[in-house]
């Protein structure tokens, strides 16, 4: 193309520039500005995803060079108890975390919305954990839940000999330990979202409900919550995509233990790719994570964008 390059103006006068030229030159600065986005989308979001999917069907071990083996990696994956435990854990943790985050976040937002004193102090206290990393969150709670010197030890020293709070050392309870730490970090954020939603409700709706004599709780349940559908959906999507990524918190709080009782898929992927030397297996697990996200996202995207295409 370079050899046919006329001075731009002359070319434009004689005839329309060639298709390729129009694609490149029209609005050029905007395309330069958007170049990082285009590269990111093509190379990372599309390219890497396809690469991962493709190589999950190979028997790559230390290097991604293996030969195509079909769904063998997936068969192995679901035959591995560590993976199955990871998936079960994630589902249990995810469902509980989603429900509790939404319920607690909403209740706190409602309470804060009752024209209380010290509103900003309460808000500050509830949101600050969200500024902290999962590593910090996990390590603090690891210390609090330390069976000998943490909360349990303290209570026993104080005289409650039977006080038990050994969840991080108890395979059956360890998920709830994760949950306590996760909720501590994330509920404040949900509260802020919900509060924004509550404050967005037209004040005259509240007045109208009072004139109609509708009790406050009923106004929330029957009128306000349905009006907050948008905020609720946003919260579910954000909390949900955070749950699928759950990794740092587990590494810091339990490192998957005791045994494999608090393993999660993200950690499984990491361990097989970077420590286990079984890339194909890691990629297959990653692809399964992708699949689960798509299963969550498609209905949401359909609901949000499908209907009338009312948004820009």
């Amino acid at each position: 193309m370079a050899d046919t390059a006329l001075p731009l103006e002359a070319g434009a006068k004689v005839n329309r520039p060639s298709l390729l030229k129009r694609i490149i030159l029209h609005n050029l600065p905007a395309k330069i500005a958007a170049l990082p986005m285009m590269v990111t989308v093509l190379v990372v979001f599309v390219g890497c995803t396809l690469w991962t999917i493709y190589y999950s069907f190979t028997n790559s071990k230390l290097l991604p060079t293996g030969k195509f083996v079909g769904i063998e990696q997936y068969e192995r994956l679901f035959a591995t108890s560590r993976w199955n435990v990871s998936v079960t854990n994630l589902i249990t943790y995810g469902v509980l975390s989603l429900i509790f985050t939404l319920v607690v976040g909403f209740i706190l937002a409602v309470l804060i919305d009752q024209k209380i004193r010290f509103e900003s102090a309460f808000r500050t206290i509830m949101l600050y954990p969200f500024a902290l990393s999962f590593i910090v969150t996990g390590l603090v709670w690891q210390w609090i839940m330390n069976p000998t010197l943490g909360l349990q030890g303290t209570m026993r020293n104080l005289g409650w000999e039977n006080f038990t709070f050994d969840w991080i050392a108890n395979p059956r309870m360890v998920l709830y330990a994760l949950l306590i730490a996760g909720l501590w970090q994330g509920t404040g954020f949900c509260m802020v979202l919900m509060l924004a939603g509550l404050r967005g409700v037209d004040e005259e709706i509240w007045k109208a409900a009072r004139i109609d004599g509708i009790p406050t709780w009923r106004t929330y349940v029957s009128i306000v919550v349905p009006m907050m559908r948008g905020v609720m959906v946003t919260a579910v999507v954000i909390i949900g995509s955070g749950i699928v990524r759950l990794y740092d918190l587990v590494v810091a709080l339990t490192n998957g233990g005791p045994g494999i009782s608090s393993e999660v898929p993200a950690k499984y992927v990491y361990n097989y790719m970077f420590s286990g030397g079984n890339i194909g297996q890691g990629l297959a697990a990653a692809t399964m994570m992708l699949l689960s996200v798509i299963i969550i996202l498609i209905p949401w995207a359909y609901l949000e964008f499908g209907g009338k295409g009312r948004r820009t």
Partner: protein
Amino acid sequence: MQNSVSIRDLSLNFGSVKVLQHLDLDIAQGEFIVLLGPSGCGKSTLLNCIAGLLDVSDGQIFIGGKNVTWLEPKDRGIGMVFQSYALYPQMTVERNLSFGLRVAGMKKDEVERRVARAAEILQIEPLLDRKPANLSGGQRQRVAIGRALVRDVDVFLFDEPLSNLDAKLRSDLRVEIKRLHHRLKNTMIYVTHDQIEALTLADRIAVMKNGVIQQLSDPHTIYNKPVNLYVAGFIGSPQMNMFEGTLEGTTFTTADGTVVSVDTYDFAAPSNGPIQAVLGVRPEHIALGEAAAAMPFSIDAEIEIVEPMGSDTLAWTKIGNKAVTFRCDSDVVIETGQMVRIGFDPARGSIFSAETTNRL
């Protein structure tokens, strides 16, 4: 006759801000009262106090002879219509109308009867299964009125109900509200900043400023005999022409020396010594040409600007140095630069003390 709504010595403060001050107001059964004033004058606040949506700082409120000062809104026997309609968005029109009744535990057939009656009165039967999002502004406002209607109450409160509508719909619904009042004969208290709505709808208008009722009277009196400069200036568009000057006996001398004899003016109390005063004349009370010559006061003036409005024509001129607007028939041909004779009868004007701003 029993007053429908009585307000006794009502005050409301937000912190140190006095929003309403020692306000008294008696509203007769079936009366249509309009609270009129600019934003921030306290008219909506007063309405919210009557509704029980705001706690008062002092004073009492009676509705139907009952002291409701401490009662919940739902127990006061009122219905209310809001500016933003405040319809419950996820409920159908039918459920919007019936929600309050059902929450109160009313029998199903009674709920249905009331909804059907309200829908019939407001002609919204075809809309009952729709959601508010699928209604036009005018339809939404009808549903909002319907929600007050089904409560079967004596007092309706309207908080700027037409302000979110376009001009055409506004005048349509205005007529409709008036028709509704004739049919239901409820007491209605209506808040607006639109003087046309006030003048057309009200039995009596309460003009408010800074939390105080300036004048409470029928629209005719408010328009023709404003009690003070504020009311005179607020009501009427274009504004009343105001001449500043001195009044001595029945002779008014404007600041730039024009002398107007005000013999015909009906003074509330005759004044003697020379006092600073303001003479106000409405644009439509200024006559032109031969009619002007017949008036107690007339003068030659040069037309500066002509604004044809369709139904009539507005013209801008000067008496002395003072800009004056007058209104004349749209058939009259006048042009910029033309010299005309204009005149008025002070009896139709208003004279205010410059000191107290009250009507003399």
